[in-house]
């Protein structure tokens, strides 16, 4: 489970949802793993403003990972205009959609993908750091503990279990 997911997860108990103590869940005995992946700048730019930044900083601290800046960076701070070269990310987007079939193949024409409306951007160090943290670091094992009720949700093989036992439903 990539660390970004933790920014959306809270206690499954309905009464806890109302308490600010239930979010974020606190990792305990966490076993982390880093799996490198392609940088996805357009996703980072979209998701950044939706993050609960203070809570993310808290989780990062609890996991003993390098501190995040106090103030959430602006989405604009993730990319800087490149020298015209296409980034890997754009190349990846083009691979997303198969536009040809054997039957109807035309010789390739240079064409900008519709999704790449933004000008080509090169990721800044901030983007690289956030990518490493949110999308390359994952929780393999441990527990996620609610700060309100104390219930611990187990994480095994990267899969967290939020099913509530009989006495809590």
């Amino acid at each position, binding site marked *: *489970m*990539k660390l*970004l*997911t933790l920014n*959306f*997860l*809270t*206690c*499954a*108990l*309905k009464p806890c*949802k109302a308490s600010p103590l239930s*979010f974020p869940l606190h990792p305990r005995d966490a076993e982390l793993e880093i*799996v490198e*992946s*392609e940088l*996805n700048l*357009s*996703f980072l*730019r*979209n*998701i950044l403003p*939706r993050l*609960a930044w203070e809570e993310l900083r808290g989780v990062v601290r609890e996991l003993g990972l390098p501190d995040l800046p106090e103030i959430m960076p602006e989405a604009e701070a993730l990319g800087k205009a490149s020298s015209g070269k296409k980034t890997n990310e754009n190349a990846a*987007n083009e691979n*997303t*959609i*198969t*536009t*040809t*079939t054997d*039957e*109807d*193949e*035309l*010789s*390739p024409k240079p*064409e*900008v*993908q*519709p*999704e790449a409306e933004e000008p080509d951007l090169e990721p800044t160090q901030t983007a690289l750091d956030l990518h490493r943290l949110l*999308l390359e670091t*994952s929780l393999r094992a441990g527990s996620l503990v609610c700060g309100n009720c104390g219930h611990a*949700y187990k994480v*095994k*093989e*990267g*899969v*967290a*279990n*939020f*099913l*509530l*036992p*009989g*006495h*809590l*439903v």
Partner: protein
Amino acid sequence: MPDYLVRMVQVHESFRKAELQASADVNGVKVEFVKYHEDSPFCIVRLPSDAAARSVISRSILSHSICEIWGQGPTYDALHVSTKESSSSKWPQYAQAPFRFTLDSYRGSRTAEEQTAIVNSFSYLGLSGPARMKTPEASFRVFEDYGAVQSDGPRYLYLGRLIASSGRQAKTTYDLKKRHYISTTSMDAELALLTANIALAAPGKLFYDPFMGTGGFPLACAHFGAVVCGSDIDGRSIRGTGGSARRGQVGKKDVELNFKQYGLESRYLGGFVSDLTNTPLRLSTARGGYLDGIICDPPYGIREGLKVLGSRATLDDTERATHRDRYQEAGYIPPKRPYSFTALLDDILAFSVATLVENGRLSMWMPTANDADVELVIPTHPCLEIVSVCVQEFNKWSRRLLTYRRRAAAEVPLGALETGSRDYERGRADDLNAFRKRYFEGFKEFEEVELGAGRSGEVDDTKGISGRWRKK
């Protein structure tokens, strides 16, 4: 704006227009349907440019290609006249280009000699470049529409220059037969991709499936570029079955393996075990939504009855104590209780309202018995606008793909959010799930009803939409 010919496939007809519209929406392109019939694979649309046409068709699963129209008419004579009138200014541009010229006969066929004669009848176009079957620079096609039945000759003809092929190739790429990890309830690749497309899955977006099973929907969304996560009440489906996968694969079969198979693991956030009625996802009020899309095929509970977390009866103190003492033991199974399918659909809508960003989409499947007497009721919510309703007909039942758009707060009328009382029953699964009951009764009462023949008419089946979802 120029007109373009979309060569559609003649399957899942009621989804085709919704899909093309969604492909235009996601690209921010305005599309106008000039000519469309449920019974024809030839659709004419008005689009701003070739580039727009290319971007729209690239996502389409239910079409083959899009062409610039060079001529059209009910006979070859009329087609030639039309071609000369409307496209002669374009001919010189392609005079030297390596080209391909082919014939596409719908519900008809031509001998090789006839095909050659037809192609030769267009010699006035002055295409003098080399003919090339593979990767030509320009591709021309004559489309013959023979109409609904075998007739003596084509009823209508088009000459088109190919702008781009569709994204239909993905149907083959994601074919379940070749996927490492599937289950009996996996939706076929074509429909899963279609669902992701209509929900506007695209690069930069975050999508979620609350009933992910073996991950077919999230995979389809990732294909279109979205970052995805999912959950399921059955942890075994996410963690996998253990043992070795197909030949050439080692390790266990799980959802992650499917993402790896298609090189999409960087877009998979992960899966977690949870129940939608007790979701661990934050239900934002002040913070606003964070999901761009939710797509799902909610469990109908045909085999076991639909279940959610909880106990059938309220637990007494001793029982509660037992659960408290035992829940951390390996092998502990949380109790589940029957639940009503209509209540679950309502829960999905409420969950979507709490988690979607403005203009985010929910696309969910809903089964119904084909019962002529009962008014079809489609669940609604004041914060969700119905975008499209597409129907897949089976013999005695059908299922609908319902797509909603999350309204912005300013669009929701004051007072619209006051919901009626909801007293969802505790009872037997059969009582709670009308569809499941019908299923087990074998749809006996509808056996005379002839289906499949009555599939003409408008694409969007909006007739059954009612403000009241739950009938009392």
